[in-house]
């Protein structure tokens, strides 16, 4: 059961990553078509731009993400118990010891980030540290170590970058049409434009404005939702104890939303830091806690 779930989730993750890159290319094509009448140029720019950005971020994602989330690095003498639990999980997961961070926030939550197991970091909020016992902390950290071991930390970093690039292109395109939409250049263009061409431009504009960012965030959410189930399964594999994680998840979902979590990192947390209460669950970064607990109880 455990191993099948891991295999299935890995396939889904690959599939969603491909969709993600396709959306990026489509949005690039749409933007290229609006600006330069050339979709191929748009694709090239979008892909090249995101690769450069990706390279910069991947140089040291742990430090960047931690400073975005106001994390403070700690060492063994600052909190021996927490440090020892992280050591235990690193031992059994057979990955090097990650850096450990505390985020000063009463809301219980945690996440892992980095490029690969050798350059990784885990963060827990002070609320999580104080509210959970050892068994529950082991469950949560086991979950985070599964993210590290499965290279989810890399996938989510890439996800943050791609969503960033797509929303950048989209908002840039929106501003371009807003500010330069009524000038002389466009009047000249419009005279030369055939009706079919005009319709295509409108479709491209609508696509880039709405569909691009929407589908990008949908894909990111789905990506992280699957990763959460996989990491829950991985946590049980490491601790051999589903009960710690179950009661930890109950405590975490019952906590208050976080005050100042970084919005683009929301998908990295063990539970959505904002506790979305919206009209739709399409944009949820995490599966419903009840669903996660149900799956854990079956293990």
């Amino acid at each position: 059961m455990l191993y099948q779930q891991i295999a299935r989730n890995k396939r889904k993750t690959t599939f969603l990553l491909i969709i993600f890159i396709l959306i990026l290319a489509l949005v690039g094509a749409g933007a290229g078509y609006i600006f330069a009448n050339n979709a191929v140029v748009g694709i090239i720019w979008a892909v090249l731009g995101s690769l450069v950005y990706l390279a910069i971020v991947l140089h040291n994602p742990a430090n960047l993400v931690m400073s975005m989330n106001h994390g403070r690095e700690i060492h063994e003498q600052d909190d021996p118990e927490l440090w020892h639990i992280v050591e235990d999980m690193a031992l059994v997961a057979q990955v090097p010891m990650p850096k450990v961070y505390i985020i000063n926030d009463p809301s219980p939550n945690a996440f892992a980030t980095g490029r690969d197991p050798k350059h990784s970091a885990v963060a827990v909020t002070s609320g999580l540290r104080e509210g959970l016992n050892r068994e529950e902390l082991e469950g949560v950290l086991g979950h985070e170590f599964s993210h590290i071991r499965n290279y989810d930390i890399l996938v989510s970093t890439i996800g943050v970058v791609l969503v960033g690039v797509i929303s950048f292109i989209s908002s840039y395109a929106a501003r371009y049409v807003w500010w330069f939409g009524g000038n002389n250049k466009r009047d000249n263009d419009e005279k030369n434009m055939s009706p079919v061409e005009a319709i295509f431009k409108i479709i491209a504009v609508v696509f880039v404005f709405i569909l691009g960012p929407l589908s990008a965030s949908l894909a990111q959410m789905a990506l992280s939702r699957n990763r959460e189930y996989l990491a829950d399964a991985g946590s049980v594999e490491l601790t051999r104890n589903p009960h710690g994680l179950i009661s930890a998840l109950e405590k975490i979902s019952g906590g208050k939303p976080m005050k100042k979590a970084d919005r683009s990192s929301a998908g990295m947390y063990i539970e959505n830091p904002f506790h979305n209460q919206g009209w739709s669950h399409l944009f949820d970064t995490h599966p419903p806690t009840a669903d996660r607990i149900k799956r854990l109880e079956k293990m």
Partner: protein
Amino acid sequence: MTLMWIIIIILILIIGIYIGVYNGLQKSKIHAQEAWSQIDVQLKRRNDLIPNLVETVKGYAKHESETFEKVVQLRNQLTQIPASDHTEKMKVSDELTNSLKTIFALSENYPNLKANQNFLNLQEELTNTENKIAYSRQLYNSSVAFYDEKLVTFPSNIVANLHHFQKMDYLETPATEKEVPQVKF
């Protein structure tokens, strides 16, 4: 001519696979042995911590000398067992784990002891060591499972038989260890 080349290529392939399988077996065996040494490191660490614990607790809980004697005796017994006898070592180690749990349960009755910073540090260190023992056991068992699986699956079982690779044994967790000790006064 071509036939000869085909035979040579097949031979090279077979030798290559043979070497790969043999090295894989050796590697997983070494891996399992390494996992055992992890446990040993933690057992030694715990043995070093125990005298400090006994010294610290003794002053506060004078009437419990029986418990201390048992812990010290088990500790000394553990150092006498040869490294190769994994089962015996784990058996004594589990007994020691239970005696230590009794000491920590005792401390509940002595408020001054519970407030002693030295005792609190020792308690955290020993809890840490106990957890590390449990987790390295788990790691040892999964390494052994990986190795043993190779001994019975094709084609590594052929190579293993030719070179007389021995099956390794799991460390069993006694049922009592999973329970919280009941201390009554």
